[in-house]
């Protein structure tokens, strides 16, 4: 045991690992297998069509219907090697999804260990490693959308047995190296779980996540290199992806994410949740910026005075969600040991689901005054012509409650119906308090 923990910690700094293809966890229909050559090849596809009706207090959202997922997937397994790739063509645009190679160590150990390299979900999140097709909801929770990492290019190492799960990796900042300026930063993170109860009838897991990201890519203007971080979530829908809750954090340089998670399932019921906390530190070339502004009659004349007028502070955001499901009939909820996730549906079933999600993207300093017509915070608490720049971020706090019913006709086709009430508190959208979403999805996967 000890050596696995040690090994995991070591690899967290150098390598990584992650899920098989939980991103797409139903079994493909088209298979070719050559047992002599130890080769197995599969092809599959998935389609999601959503229809949504929105009712907002003020800012409109576009109700309608859309193909929100249209994927082709393929995999090949050879001996201990597994290759997987899937691509999305929904909304008429190609988008890179997973493409990775995985090597699994085969030995007599109760531990299963694997190495993985390519482009796939960062391991430091339960929500984003759960396939959209297996989510039991139309979208991931707003907190996960805004605060969790998505797919990244890198390597990871995973080890698990019935009671423990360790998955960690190192990743690059940009999968295509097509940033405007700068060299890529690096991230590393992982997910570490303990499963005190884990058998056919019941699973309970408890875990922690951590992720560090160094932001190196950005854009240089007037010899000043600026990095930027954008966070945000849709209203947990894909038909209109407008983000009422969103934040832009200029000069972001390092992000530290810590989280905890829990999952409990019995055949007829599941509950799972995560809490996420993000700390963002910043870095800026003050000297060059100061020098660039010199030469005007209104220039700051000392670096100290310029810095006082343009303070730079770190920001903090957080969020979390709790999801529950009750299966009225069906084959029962199952748990995937290798991914430490709930499995998707596998036959005719009917379930009721509910979720509470909270996203906190407001990091506003006490006593500041906000002027909507300028979307500006005033640090002294009253309007000024040239106030010191506020370090507040008013990205919005949002509570969301979702209830839904999902019916699976069989293991290939499913219909989801969902209602979400979002309660927004964002200064920029002062008249948008309630955003109602009623949506349905037809999901087909083979």
């Amino acid at each position: 045991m000890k050596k696995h923990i040690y090994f995991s910690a070591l690899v967290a700094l150098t390598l990584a690992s992650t899920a098989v293809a939980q991103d797409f966890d139903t079994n493909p229909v088209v298979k070719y297998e050559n047992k002599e050559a130890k080769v197995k090849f599969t092809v599959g596809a998935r389609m999601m069509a959503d229809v949504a009706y929105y009712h907002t207090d003020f800012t409109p959202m576009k109700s309608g219907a859309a193909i929100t997922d249209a994927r082709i997937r393929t995999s090949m397994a050879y001996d201990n090697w597994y290759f997987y790739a899937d691509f999305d063509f929904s909304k008429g645009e190609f988008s890179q999804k997973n493409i990775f190679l995985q090597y699994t160590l085969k030995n007599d150990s109760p531990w299963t260990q694997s190495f993985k390299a390519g482009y796939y979900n960062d391991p430091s999140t339960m929500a984003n490693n759960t396939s959209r097709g297996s989510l039991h909801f139309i979208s991931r929770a707003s907190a996960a959308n805004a605060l969790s990492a998505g797919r990244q290019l890198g390597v990871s190492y995973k080890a698990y047995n019935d009671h423990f799960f360790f998955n960690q990796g190192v990743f690059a900042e940009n999968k295509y190296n097509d940033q405007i300026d700068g060299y890529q930063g690096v991230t590393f993170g992982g997910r570490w779980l303990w499963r005190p109860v884990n058998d056919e009838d019941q699973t309970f897991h408890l875990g922690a996540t951590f992720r560090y990201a160094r932001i190196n890519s950005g854009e240089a203007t007037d010899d000043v290199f600026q990095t930027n971080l954008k966070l945000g979530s849709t209203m947990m829908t894909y038909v209109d992806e407008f983000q009422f809750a969103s934040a832009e954090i200029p000069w972001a340089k390092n992000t530290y994410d810590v989280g905890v998670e829990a999952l409990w399932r019995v055949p007829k019921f599941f509950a799972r949740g995560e809490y996420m906390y993000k700390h963002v530190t910043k870095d800026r070339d003050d000297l060059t910026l100061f020098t660039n502004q010199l030469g005007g009659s209104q220039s700051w004349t000392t670096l100290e005075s310029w810095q006082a007028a343009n303070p730079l502070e770190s920001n903090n955001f957080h969020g979390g969600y709790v999801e529950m499901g009750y299966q009225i009939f069906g084959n029962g909820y199952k748990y995937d040991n290798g991914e430490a996730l709930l499995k998707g549906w596998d036959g005719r079933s009917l379930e009721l689901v509910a979720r509470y999600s909270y996203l906190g993207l407001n990091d506003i300093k006490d006593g500041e005054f906000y002027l909507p017509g300028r979307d500006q915070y005033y640090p002294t608490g009253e309007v000024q012509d040239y106030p010191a720049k506020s370090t507040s971020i008013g990205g919005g706090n949002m509570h969301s409650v979702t209830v839904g019913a999902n019916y699976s006709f069989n293991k290939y086709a499913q219909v989801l119906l969902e209602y979400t009430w979002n309660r927004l508190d964002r200064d920029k959208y002062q008249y948008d308090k309630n955003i109602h979403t009623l949506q349905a999805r037809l999901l087909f996967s083979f």
Partner: protein
Amino acid sequence: MFKNLIRLGFTFSVAVVTFSSCEHQDFTNELEDVDRVQVNTISDDMAKVRDYVPRMAVIAHRGSTFWVPEETEAAYRWAREMGADYLEADLQCSKDGVVLALHDDNLCRTTDIENVYGEYIPSTRKQFYMTYYKMTEAQADAQVEADKASFQPYYAKSYMYHELAQLDAGTWFNESSPEQGRSSFSKDGGIHQYISTLGDLINYAKGKKLQRGNDGERVYTITKTGDPNSYSEGDELVYTFEYADDEEWRGNNPGIYIEFKESWLNPTTFEQDVYDELAKYDYNIMEKPSSETNFYKADGSVNVGNTNGKVILQTFSLESLRRTAGVFKGEIPMCFLLWTGTAATDLIYNTPSGYASFINLGLQYKAHIMGPCIAGAPNNYPEMNAPWQAYLIKKSGMLNHPYSFDSLEQMGKYFGEYNWGNEYGTLFEPPYLDGAFTNRTELTLQYFIDKGVRNSAAAQTVPDATATLERLGYHK
């Protein structure tokens, strides 16, 4: 399996039809949003102060820039004699604390400062310190050196009033507007037009003109506080300006409409300084309220300057808006001017919600009037007084004083002449103003009279613009 697929298809079709039939969609549009945004309303106490201001006031913008060199004696005498309700001016401060009625912070456009002083501190500065501050030569040398550190060439705040008084504020007009130019506007061979002071403006409104000496130059004296024979730190100069009865005055006493400029151009005590200056000339109703309430005299001449509406304050500056509220406490009519853009004081989001937030800010800081800019030649400002915007102002109970009118076409536009009945019932009913900043006082007065909105107690004829200039002694 086949049965299930049929069931699936049916279910999905029902869902699509159900959702498609939900037709209500809250697309944003100004027509709806004007009644969905929160606009606060003026309080009863504030409304009383608002009502110090006559409706459909004609505000001579900088004195009326079309006809006369702006913010000079010529401009304000002409506007007064034409019958404007208010003489509009911008306030700045000279280095030695004189409150100026002056628009541009940089003096190059409207004076001959480049020829007179160039980019250097006036060479007379040392002598000035010795003569008026009673400094020793060493003290004066040291003070000049200190001045150099903060000297900004051509900025009014860098010059003593006595130095500014040497500048010619009239000749430039003859060069930039040759058709309206007059030899009398020029210092050379005409009547020296000065950078005005707030005191000058008040006296013009009272029917006065500058007292001039035999050399044609204005008369004023400079004394100092403290020991009259030696300088001590903190000593200040006191200018005493002389005014004469204007023999061409025919009874109009307009009010003054004075703007606090960008806050960084003036001392942080500037609002208080203006308060004191108004009091000095008996023009501060907080110190000396007026008992007269008629905006017009029995003969139709303007009497606003003798009522509690004699002064209207205005500013674009958010900081000055706040400071003005602190000093004047909403007891003198105040106009919050609007401009849209991305600069420090601009409304960035010119939408119903953004616009409403600026109205609410105005009310929070005790403004009674909103002053939006208007579109149209020759200035081609951005449009901030569209019907929906005027509606929001009206809804707040504040007055609407748009700026600046230059043509009858603009007058017609904001009286709804080109709406062709598209006013959405009575929602956006014209007119879209309660007064007008105008560069064509004569046009605006005549339009208001023709339209029947000029107060019936006011004169119903407008003097001829050029004849008035001639009468006042400004000849071609």
